[in-house]
């Protein structure tokens, strides 16, 4: 007879919260696994009453929404926690923020309600700093990219090299100059499969116009959300936000 875990089953989920956080500065080099590990430890240090899965190896119930790639900073990462006790969102926010390393910054915590987070996010707005690239050069390359109907690029993934079309994901691409030697690319990209990342767009700019930045580009995700007609993104936490400030758990109990 195989052993069963002793003791009572894990306490039920009484509430869920949604969290927007930023990945900044040198912590942009964290991979998704690194971020997830840091959160698990931060949640323990902050003594957040997490709900756990059952079994011999209980895990805190955390649901991640598509993470920014290693090397990319972000102002708009999202995650959802299941809780076993009611918690006031703002104290959760400040406690968790204080328990995470500087650079993983918790921006907002709201009680979860309505549609799943994943259904409220289908696009990202990116800003990519391109040190060593002059703005007119970037502008020409972007114009060439937008003129095309499709641009195939290749990327090494865990399962070998993969080829895919970048073009359909690019909804908007704008150029600015930070100064004479540094251009800024602003992108709105639809979340396709595979997800088109800023480095894929840069590969596409190389394919269509031979653009090769001499220094590594610095991408930052500024927003995620549902893509609206005018090319802006709807805040995925807006529908939940009216509930903010209430004691999470009490209301849904």
């Amino acid at each position, binding site marked *: 007879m195989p052993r069963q875990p002793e003791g009572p089953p894990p306490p039920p989920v009484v509430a869920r919260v949604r969290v927007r956080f930023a990945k900044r500065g040198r912590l942009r*080099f964290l991979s998704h696994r*690194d971020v997830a590990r840091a959160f698990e430890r931060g949640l323990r240090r902050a003594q957040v009453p997490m709900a756990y899965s059952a079994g011999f190896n209980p895990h805190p119930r955390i649901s991640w929404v598509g993470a920014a790639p290693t090397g990319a900073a972000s102002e708009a990462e999202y995650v959802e926690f299941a809780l076993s006790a009611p918690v006031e969102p703002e104290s959760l926010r400040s*406690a968790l923020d204080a328990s995470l390393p500087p650079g993983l910054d918790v921006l907002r915590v709201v009680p979860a309600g309505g549609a799943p987070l994943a259904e409220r996010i289908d696009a990202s707005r990116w800003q990519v700093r391109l040190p060593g690239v002059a703005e007119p050069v970037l502008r020409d390359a972007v114009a060439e990219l937008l003129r095309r109907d499709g641009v195939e690029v290749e990327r090494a993934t865990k399962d070998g090299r993969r080829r895919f079309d970048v073009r359909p994901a690019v909804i908007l691409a704008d150029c600015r100059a930070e100064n004479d030697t540094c251009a800024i690319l602003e992108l709105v990209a639809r979340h396709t499969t595979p997800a088109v990342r800023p480095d894929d767009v840069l590969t596409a700019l190389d394919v269509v116009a031979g653009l090769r930045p001499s220094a590594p580009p610095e991408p930052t995700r500024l927003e995620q959300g549902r893509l609206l007609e005018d090319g802006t993104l709807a805040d995925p936490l807006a529908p939940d936000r009216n509930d903010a400030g209430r004691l999470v758990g009490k209301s849904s109990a």
Partner: protein
Amino acid sequence: MCRRLARMSGQSLFARLEPLLPRVRRPVQYVGGEGNSIVKPWDAAVVRWALMYPDAYEVGLPNQGLQILYEILNEQPDVLAERTYSVWPDLEALLREHDLPQFTVDAHRAVGDFDLFGVSFSTELGYTNLLTALDLAGIPLHADRRDDTHPLVIAGGHAAFNPEPIAAFVDAVVLGDGEQAVLGISDVVRAWKSEGAPGGRTELLARLARRQLVYVPAFFDVTYRADARIEAVRPNRSDIPARPSKHTLSDLDSWPYPKAPLVPLAETVHERMSVEIFRGCTRGCRFCQAGMITRPVRERNIETIGAMVDAGLRATGFNEVGLLSLSSADHTEIGTIATELADRYENDKVSLSLPSTRVDAFNVTLANEFSRSGRRSGLTFAPEGGSERLRRVINKMVSAEDLVRTVSTAYAHGWRQVKLYFMCGLPTETDEDVLEIADLARQVIRAGRKASGHRDIRATVSIGGFVPKAHTPFQWAAQASPEVIDARLKLLRDTVRADKEIARAVGFRYHDGRPGAIEGLLARGDRRVGTVIERVWREGGRFDGWTEHFSFERWERACAAELEPLGASLDWFTTREREEREVLPWDHLDAGLDRDWLWADWQEALRGVELDDCRWTPCYDCGVCPTMGTDTQIGPTGRSLLPVIGVSAGGPAAGGGPKPVDGSDPSPVGSAAPA
């Protein structure tokens, strides 16, 4: 970059480093920012240490020795310590291309800017990585080429108990526990700097040697005989001790470090917090260098351990705690510790582990306590030697009956797998001794099937090649060649495979024996081996502890080129048995062990005579306690864990999570910790 100008600047190099990071594998290992890491203003410190673990970050970060020294030094108001680890070849190439130096991960300062560069060696296979770091730091490889603008390079760690192979590359060596030694060194450096650095680095080294803080290889001359053996090792100054000796920390309860363990952002080899429950071991296993050089046994008491576990968990958010020592089940209060910690954390999803390999039923009881509601996957036992005769030779007294009884208990309590650890190539070993491992495995599988009531039982037999080490009774022994070890293990493997009853139940793990030969060369080598290390490094040798980087051929070639003209060779240093009166390269370094006792114990080994543990039987005069002025410090104290306040009580209190570290609460430590 002009190194001389940059020195003493302590400026952050991060802005220049950052553009390189997207181009290397796992850049997160170079960014620092770990939980509980410390960055101090450069100008606020008088004495500045760069501390290195000379292996990849994922291995080096969890190292307890380095974490302990880092915290102790940074607690001093005018001392600053930062950490650095080996960079992988991809970043090494970029650093060279962009003229950037070896840097610390804390504030990304150049290692060459610091006053002291302390390197902790757990294994000899890190020596080539030392050379990479020195070279990248702009520090001349040879100590005699350095001037007052360069940091003092200080080695420590278990491997430094025979530092002769790296004598040319280091300025000084700390033997033994590093806690008090680094504070003493800081005091001497502080005073010397405040006097305006009189006499330059030679005077500084002389002061450190006179205060018995360090061994300075340059203050000793080695002469050789015509047959290549050492004639004598003599000090070349009269104002220093002729026999530098090891440091021994007494009263571990007063040194509960690390209080706030580092929490890495990158994934590392040990994703847990460690608390060192005692240091030293007097079981007297004759092959075990750690047991010999860390004597006597000094326990932390149950209260300190409980407080360290509690404070460490609060400070880190880890959910796994390892209770470390050389033989954790031997702690005099381990039963109470296990039960009370298991009670305390039962509902907290904190898992506890005890890396103990003792073959007895009590050990299984402890493991059961620690896995009350967790999975019972595997338990490891270490009989070390295949035959009873061989186990008497190595003084690891475990009978086949003990082993069968122990594994039966384990399988009966729901453990699914047992791992058995053995060594091959032990002194006096024959093919028959090794083949007895197959018999043991058969008995274990049979016992497991009987105790569990089903056939699906697995055991793993894991085998390591034996490497004789300095300051042990086997320091005179001939090391078995990789060919001998490989042949014996092939025989064993074939025997197990041919045995239908167990062939599929026994897994077999054995690593290539050739790195062991090089480890043996470096472990018992003398100063002439330094040229071999340097040649290997110049020909590209890096990360020798990693199979994919280690090249036996490169080491063989370098040995042939550097040693054979001197009448020595790789074999001469490894497979040659030494005579009683031969001067060993480390004889002038005092680990406290009486040389005559070591020799007598070696002779007893050859006769197969065992020796009891001096914790439970009278002292057998190994020499350590009187020489070092220390005593065995053990319980039981009869105390219990002190209650802790509010573990996981309630949710996040309004107003921030528990902030780590105020320095007043004791917290975790791990394995023994020389500089």
